[in-house]
């Protein structure tokens, strides 16, 4: 069946046999966007986190049929080296990644959190950022999340 959606600002149509195929594999294998990672396949680790209509979704457990007509953003669409998203800027300033594998998922979860709560408290972070990082970069990540909030609130008023 044919399913259409927007991904990173571009309209896409795919032809897929199984409409229950997870969005993750469409993104990774059909659209060749490898920044969204496979970690567990059961929505338990968050490595596959991306945005569907601005909300953080664990794409390994999200059937592709549900993405029809929606706006998907992956790490590749969050920001670029030339024009980084505040989260990516903060991650760079604090040198957060170690192995780096889970980091796109964390950055996507953080970007979605900042949409919801622009200036999160430590408790907000604890309650909302529940992905797994085995290198345990949480200490720098928390600092980077606060920094990203700062960068977002500084840049927002100018944009609005």
């Amino acid at each position: 069946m044919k399913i259409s959606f927007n991904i990173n600002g571009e309209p896409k149509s795919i032809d897929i046999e199984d409409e229950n195929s997870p969005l993750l594999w469409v993104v990774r294998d059909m659209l060749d966007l490898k920044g969204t990672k496979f970690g567990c396949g059961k929505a338990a680790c968050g490595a596959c986190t991306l945005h569907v209509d601005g909300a953080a979704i664990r794409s390994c457990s999200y059937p592709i049929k549900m993405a029809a007509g929606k706006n998907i953003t992956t790490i590749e669409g969050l920001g670029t080296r030339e024009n980084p998203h505040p989260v990516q800027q903060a991650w760079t300033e604090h040198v957060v990644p170690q192995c780096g594998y889970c980091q796109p998922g964390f950055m996507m979860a953080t970007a979605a959190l900042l949409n919801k709560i622009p200036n999160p408290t430590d408790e907000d972070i604890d309650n909302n950022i529940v992905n797994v990082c085995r290198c345990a970069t949480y200490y720098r990540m928390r600092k980077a999340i606060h920094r990203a909030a700062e960068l977002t609130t500084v840049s927002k008023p100018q944009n609005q």
Partner: protein
Amino acid sequence: MTRKRRKKNVSRRKFLVRGGLGTLGVLALGTFVFRNPIRRSVFEMAETLVPPYDGTGTEANLWFEILKDNTIVLHSSKVEMGQGTFTGLAQIAADELDVDINQIKVVHANTDSGVVDGMSTGGSLSIASLWQPLREMAATMREMIKGMAAEKMGISIGDLTTKNGVVSGGGKTLTYAEVATNVTEWKVPDTPKLRDRSSYQFVGKPISRIDLAAKVYGDPIFGMDAEMPNMLHASVIRPQHVGATMKSADISVAEKMPGVVKIVKQDNWVGIIADSYTQALTAKRAIQVDWDIPKMWTEEGIREMLQVGKGDKMICQKEGSTLDTDDSNVVTLEFSSPIGAHAQIEPNGAVAHVKDGKATIIISTQVVQITQKQVAKALGLDMENVNIIPTYLGGGFGRRLNTSHAVQAAILSKEVGRPVKYFFSRKEEFQHDSFRPPTHHIMKGKLNENGLLASLEHHYASGDVAINSVLLPGAVNTILGTDIGAARGGNIMYRNIPNHRAIQWHTTLPFATSWWRSLGLLANTFAIESFMDEMAIKAGKDPVEFRLAQLNDDEMGKRIKAVITKAAEKSGFQEKPVNGRAMGFAACVDAGSPCAHVVEISIEEGEIKVHKVTCVLDCGIAVNPDQVKAQCEGSVIMGISAAMHEKMTLKDGQLYPTIFGPYEMALMRNAPKEIDVVLIEGADVPLPVGEPPLGPIGAAVANAVKRLTGKRLTDLPLSL
């Protein structure tokens, strides 16, 4: 305990120089190195518990290439799994080459570009072991370029200077690439004098990670991201019960399913090859396997096997006399640690292409050369026809010191004559891990009339770490007579205690156990340092003073004292809890790097909450202090995860749990909000970093709990 310095000069090696590397490079520099006698390796390892650097083989090792745009490519024999090795190597090379750090590009060496470091990436040794050879190689190359520039420019070499990859003299300049262009004959000088510490531009500086942008913008750098043209996807069925073997598999339904290309039955596994991963997965679920399950293993069954007094006994340390078991003044405490999973987020897997007697494997692995050997052996190929291309690793932690699944990928590819990508499901990761073995410890001690220890004994039982590992030849364990991995941190570092000993009991368990970041250190330090605190309390002494009094004054003793003193001072350590918060102290020495932690905890809603950790590490020269700190922070939180949350068990004959969540790990909310890392430079070489800070964390938390509640926790994961 100090690591023996190896000063093997590069000049004793035979150089290989290749000019004009097609269109890409203008100079490639490598060396022929000779295999270390295995015996020497064994003895060095026995002394330090650290495998030495060993560029094995007699083939050329490719180290550097200079590209036309004056980029220097460093072919790293060590893989980057998050520890920051690529950045550290670039810093070290840049200083001797006289180039800017941004001119250096570090790539993983693949086996076609020369033999890679046969000893693998692990043991926190990448920077420590390459420190000397890399500097010598880089300095030699710089002098070769200067020599050639002198010829080309007609200026005496003494009048030339090098900076930012440019040779200057007599008003003329040439880039290194320009110097190297069209050169076919190179003169290789003796190893030049290495840079003085004071002239370093990059070593010792907190340079940002050179792989940072790739990791912040989601570049496809991992094994899981690799693809080959015309590639198929595969999934594999393996036993779920411990010790199970496959009797038969009914593939009749699955082989007719959409996208299925071929189903391959092997001895104890079935491979399903399909056009897409989801198709392979769907077909996998349609296969009925009849398993032979000889025994339903239980947690109790494993515990029963794994006890002090059972298995092979080895005295690892023996000083003075043994404790009299009838002595009523002897204090005895038992400790235990559970089975631990690696739980790295990138699953194991590989992309393989086997065709016309050649195999190419792209893989996240810590053992590049062993994987090459395994594939060659399984497929009956010569080593030179197997090329292993390592990628960035989505976590290593020791899990990828066994990547024999490359063989499965190769077999599957051979069956269809096309590239095949295959990786583990998360359940397979949890059930087919090479786990941290569970341990059992009995600590015994006796105080003298001055309130110091007259005797201290550590008796411990462990499953395999180094024993039965592909990483070490069987001879190593036979010669040493002990599991050197399980022994990490098992010896008593308090050498002033007149009678002390460490006795290891080893048992091979019915499921694979092996290397897990810091090996035996985590559990051994938990037992020893918990007991030390208990004895300090019994003696009515300050736990810091109690420890210091029992360390000797040799070089290592002094370095341990320094980290302990610094940790107490920096954290403002005090014994008595204040406002519901208590501090806990613990220290260790691992592979030549002493480390001490002070934690600050409270009990919130019945759970232990770690607020702050002060971590003091003496790792000699910190090539990149920011990344050393990152390793300490990560080790502290991973240590909290292992010591306070994680536990694998056996349920219905299977290893359990098989998913994150039920396999409880430290998340953001469990990470301390304050981690104060202090680095001490107690040696003039870089020493191991990535594992020592995992050691003290369990005991430090347990010691704080004791001071807050009066309760002594003796089993990991810690639970009130």
